[in-house]
């Protein structure tokens, strides 16, 4: 049974009276505990698709069902709550809260869920240890390197034990060596914390690490490759 189902989703943006079709009739299924990559050139619709999957935006047409829950019918507050408990986000620019240290950044989603202090502290410590940042727990984002910031972001994304983590070009702002280590870390975290990752990238090395991959072009999925598949041209 699939974790995520994207059915006939279309999205058009209106920019200065010009309609830009970002996605057209996209269909995609993501299975639990998989490492799925959305690939494609810049402007192909990867970020738009991730935003729709993450409930950050609403499709013009079609339906997105995550873990059996259609996101389209949820109110704004309900979608916020849903994101908090079921989806983690990793951003290209890390997007850590600059006034919070590494520990507090990871802890923040757990505070929103109302997790008890003891459980919260244990979870944060475990995650920081898993991403190798225990010695930097009290450091502010500004005192961390790019790779360290992204590690904090990954730990934060996993804080509430979501079924799905979405990462938009997580290695784009990192050098290749750091980017490789981040991909390796994400792979490790995906297995250790038993979650699913969907992320966008056009890095061939990242594609090679994927269980499944989908290639987008001009807002359409043109190819889906699964671990067990040889590749399906659409």
């Amino acid at each position, binding site marked *: 049974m699939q974790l995520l189902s994207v059915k006939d989703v279309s999205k058009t943006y209106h920019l200065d009276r010009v309609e830009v079709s970002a996605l057209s009739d996209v269909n995609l299924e993501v299975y639990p505990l998989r490492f799925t990559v959305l690939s494609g050139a810049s402007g192909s619709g990867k970020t738009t698709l991730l935003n729709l999957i993450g409930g950050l935006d609403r499709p013009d047409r079609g339906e997105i069902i995550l873990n059996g829950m259609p996101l389209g019918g949820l109110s704004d507050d309900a979608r916020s*709550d849903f994101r908090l408990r079921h989806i983690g*986000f990793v951003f290209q620019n890390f997007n850590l809260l600059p006034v919070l240290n590494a520990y507090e950044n990871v802890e923040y989603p757990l505070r929103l869920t109302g997790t008890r202090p003891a459980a919260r502290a244990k979870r944060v410590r475990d995650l920081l240890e898993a991403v190798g940042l225990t010695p930097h727990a009290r450091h502010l984002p500004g005192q961390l390197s790019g790779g360290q910031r992204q590690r904090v972001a990954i730990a934060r994304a996993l804080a509430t034990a979501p079924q799905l983590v979405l990462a938009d070009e997580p290695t784009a702002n990192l050098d290749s060596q750091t980017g490789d280590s981040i991909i390796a870390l994400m792979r490790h975290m995906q297995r250790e914390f038993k979650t699913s990752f969907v992320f966008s990238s056009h890095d061939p090395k990242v594609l090679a690490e994927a269980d499944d991959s989908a290639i987008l072009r001009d807002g359409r999925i043109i190819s889906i490759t699964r671990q067990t598949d040889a590749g399906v041209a659409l």
Partner: protein
Amino acid sequence: MNTWSLALRNLLRNRRRSFATLLAMMIGGVCILLFGGYVQNIIFGMQTGYVRGGGHLQLQHRDYFLYGSGDPAAYGIADYQQVIDLVKHDPVLAPMLTVVTPTLQFGGIGGNFEVGASRTVMASGEVMEDQNAMQTWNDYGFPDKPEVMSLTGTSADSAIIGTGVARVLQLCAPLKVADCPAPQAKAQTEGALLPHDVSLLAAGDATPEPASGGNSAAAELELLAATISGAPNVARLKVIKAESQGVKEFDDVYVGMHLRQAQRLLYGAGAPEVTSIVLQLHHTRQIPLATARLKELLATSLRDRPLAVYDFRTLNPYYGQTIGLFNAIFGFISILIGGIVLFTVSNTMNAAVVERTVEIGTLRAIGLRRAGVRTLFVSEGLLLGALGAIAGVVVALILATVINHSGLTWTPPGRVNPIGLHVRVWGETQLLIGTAIALTLVAVLSAWWPARRAARLEVVEALRHV
């Protein structure tokens, strides 16, 4: 790290901007508090003046307040000592009273017949010992020393007059009144209108002989008044001093004298009366209780007497009008400062929203609801407001202390002698708390709109913000 902690850290991110905003709020708070303290001091000063001069409450003939100015003596209180004794020994009133004293006010004509000058006057007969006791009332802790009435210890026929009366009656020289030129404009003006020969005659008649005041002899005043039976009566008074009464209209008519002398003039050998029984209380806040008790007495023990009780606010409408004026100015200044604070805080919060747009998008993506974003920014406004208000209160207290010890003086309206410039901030709990709360509320209000804007940002748009 809760919402407050996060809000505080966000404020500390841009220390210079937050400090500038705090400074604006602090200055606003200081201005409001210092002006409020200054106004409070004026009001207390006026109240002290009225209470020292005319007590908190007065028992009068019930029609005296409305009609007595035309013929005060017609509205006298007979057997007034009986009323005074009743009031003084009343178990409810007695603990509240500091002074109970009779006064007699009436109109007449004051003359210095040696120079052919006269004018209408308003005379007041008082018991000087009681008046001196009233001068010691100081419920608000003013640093001035109580004045001793000039008529204290003088002979029964002594009197004091306003400087305006001394001027008109040409008594300036013996009374050593400064800035008191001899009248001469009248003759010149008339000279232009009258035939030349008549003018010369008039000028010859009008040439003043040296007034009795021209030498160092004691000044005398003939006071003509109608007795209670309507017959004219004259008292020759020794004027011992001319005193400025603060208000020119009053200064031009005032004659002060001993109560017994005033009563002899109006009532002759008949039973003396007074126009008011003045009651001074320990504290102004006792007025409602004392008034209620007096009304009770008027309805029972004194029911046969046509008396009414008035407080000093009713007797001195200028007091209420002045409070109203200052309250209006205070309100206007407060609104003005509130507006400046509102726009300053609003500007700060708007800038914060723009700078932190991506951060807002991140918070929303993580799962913070719109209300959470709104709460965060309103909390920042609330913190700014609270810190600005606290800083304003502290600085205002320090400045007030400096001003109060600076030795500056000023002469309030209606008073003669300068008093120390005093700004009442310390101890004015209502003013302090009210200003602090108002500033904080304005800051919260200022943050509300930017917070609402932040909360309504679309997540995707916010994350895409550059």
